[in-house]
């Protein structure tokens, strides 16, 4: 019996806008209009500006640990823009702020949250995004479950979930991919491969040549895209969205990008990565590339850049002012939402702010026994 091949695989890589801002016109057909690129570029600038200001706020002690999104704006915006606002659902990690804003999450939510206040997780009615997910990879299962509910109820909605290259080592990534494909739910898995999971480089994370190919084992459609290319990210996500809507299954998109900042403000990436590597990626910055493209088309110049940056700063400054003036929540808040109804014991703890039993209940038998010399 001859040896036969039972499975063959390949992973395609999509780039439409190269590092010099040159567009592949053929591949770019039916993607983004000039007007849309201008809009998204402004969003990139705003996101970048938020990162810079949040960093300064942390350094001056006015905010807690904050993870910059710097360098990954095209991946967030290209994918987020391909999803239908108010219909499709975003399940984020924490490095796609710009996509969340695009879908209606107020910028202040992100700042309130990273300033140490869970109230930043209160998603306004009608905004179809989940709160930021901090434990790595766990949110992909929630995304799968949400998409599953849409499928069971026959709703024309698609879910996209975001995660990093490190998260693909977590069991939940594999369980989520497996559930999503087995039940064929309308879910897009969007990996922002930014090359670093805190200090561990992508090569040390997995021996797999690409992240994208991991989805093949689960029967997903898989593609690798230039994650700093707005056009490629948008197009790949749009194709995935339409496939999901048509019942055609799950897509894993690996967006190749780079974390230009530290992991968070608590991290110092100089401890583990070479300056040369960072310099190479600085040259591939999606903001530079998109600007070059717009300039090449005669749609942008220094004056417009200056005005756009000022506009971004004005937006962020306004939000920062608002957020810094929000008073801290009352300590009762960490009791009040533990359950739909507060259990008796939690009520006692809340009302007395004590866990020590004596004194919680003023009528407690024996309280003051020694002083009074008899049973109270």
């Amino acid at each position, binding site marked *: 019996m001859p040896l036969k091949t039972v499975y063959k695989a390949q992973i395609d890589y999509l780039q439409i806008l190269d590092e010099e801002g040159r567009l592949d016109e053929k591949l770019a057909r039916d993607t983004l209009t000039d007007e849309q690129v201008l809009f998204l570029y402004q969003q990139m600038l705003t996101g970048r500006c938020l990162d810079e200001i949040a960093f300064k706020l942390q350094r001056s002690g006015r905010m807690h640990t904050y993870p910059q999104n710097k360098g990954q704006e095209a991946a967030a915006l290209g994918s987020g823009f391909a999803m239908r606002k108010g219909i499709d659902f975003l399940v984020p990690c924490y490095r796609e702020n710009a996509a969340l804003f695009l879908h209606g999450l107020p910028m202040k939510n992100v700042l309130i949250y990273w300033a140490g206040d*869970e*109230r930043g*997780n*209160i*998603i306004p009615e009608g905004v179809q995004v*989940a*709160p930021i997910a901090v*434990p790595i990879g*766990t949110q*992909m*299962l*929630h*995304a*799968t*479950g*949400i*998409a*599953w*509910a*849409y499928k*069971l109820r026959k709703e024309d909605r698609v879910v996209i979930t975001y995660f990093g290259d490190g998260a693909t080592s977590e*069991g*939940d990534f594999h*369980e*989520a991919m*497996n*559930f999503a494909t*087995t*039940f064929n739910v309308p879910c897009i898995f969007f990996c922002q491969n930014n090359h670093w999971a805190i200090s561990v480089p992508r090569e040390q994370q997995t021996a797999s040549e690409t992240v994208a190919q991991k989805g093949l084992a689960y029967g997903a459609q898989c593609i690798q895209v230039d994650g700093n290319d707005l056009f490629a990210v948008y197009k790949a996500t749009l194709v995935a969205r339409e496939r999901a809507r048509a019942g055609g299954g799950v897509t894993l998109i690996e967006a190749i990008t780079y974390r230009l900042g530290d992991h968070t403000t608590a991290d110092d990436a100089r401890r583990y990565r070479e300056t040369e590597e960072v310099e190479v990626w600085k040259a591939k910055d999606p903001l530079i590339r998109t600007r070059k493209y717009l300039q090449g088309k005669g749609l942008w110049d220094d004056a417009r850049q200056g005005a756009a940056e000022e506009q971004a700063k004005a937006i962020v400054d306004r939000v920062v002012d608002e957020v810094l003036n929000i008073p801290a929540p009352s300590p009762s*808040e*960490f009791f009040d*939402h*533990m*359950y*739909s109804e507060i*259990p*008796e*014991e*939690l009520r006692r703890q809340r009302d007395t702010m004590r866990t020590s*039993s*004596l004194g919680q209940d003023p009528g*407690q*038998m*024996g309280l003051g*026994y020694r002083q009074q010399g008899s*049973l109270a």
Partner: protein
Amino acid sequence: MASLTLAQAINLALQQEMEADPRVICLGEDVGLNGGVFRITEGLQKRFGPDRVIDTPLAESGIIGTSIGLAMAGMRPVPEIQFEGFMGPAYDQLTNHAARFRTRTRGTITIPMTVRVPVGGGIHAPEFHSDSPEAIYTHNPGLKVVMPSTPYDAKGLLVAAIRDPDPVIFFEPKRVYRSFREEVPEDEYTIPIGKAKMVAEGTDLTVVTWGASVFQCLEALDHLAEDVSVELLDLRTINPMDVDVITRSVEKTGRCVVVQEAPRLCSMASEIAALIQERCFLHLEAPVQRVTGFDTVMPYAKLELDYLPDAKRIGEAIEQCLAY
């Protein structure tokens, strides 16, 4: 009214809740065509179809994580974890996500999910199939933990759990699944989560227990001297615990023995003993006794009955407490 086993009572509760509420779905390993390894979901897939009674891949974190997503999107999932020994992979999803979504979103996202889990020893199951982890999930704020011991309570509590807006871990003592029958109404009823049951009234000593241990305690009570009057409480809900019922009883009797299958260290029995010394100090006639599993790994079938508290150990502890 039918005479049902605990297994049948749970099946009936699932059937009626699925009938009443299209958001309710069952999912887990082997729960569909096979009706679950304990046949608790027997016949449900045939009746409600494979979209509502779902055989999932073999992945506990996956089952609970996707159930959380289903709940976030408005469903009322009732996932089954096949045995308590396999809850480990789902621990992160249960404690970091199911338990926390409500508070970390200030009540805007909630997880109405009932996780059914066969629990405890005594049926000569394989290794890793006989533990009692109720304290672990009680220690983690945000989950409710329920463990009925009778068919009637099981039906009423399961209906209450499925309708509860918060995540509930519903432990089913496998030793009781088919050990006896009881009259269980077809009609709808619920038993409130958080309320203990007085199994026997007494004046000399309080026994606090839950799950299958209720029956070991009843056996122990049968062997006590005629003139000894013991009050037996079945907690039914582990968290939130019915502390007031325990307090009232111990204030009356002055003596308490807590019985559980789980190891003693950092357990529910430890917590109950601490609560009693805080709240009933001046009423106590004897130290609170704990009769528990040993602080060892749960042994495999041949030694499991040496590990689990039996009527003899419970009876001795009661007698010592009375004689103190």
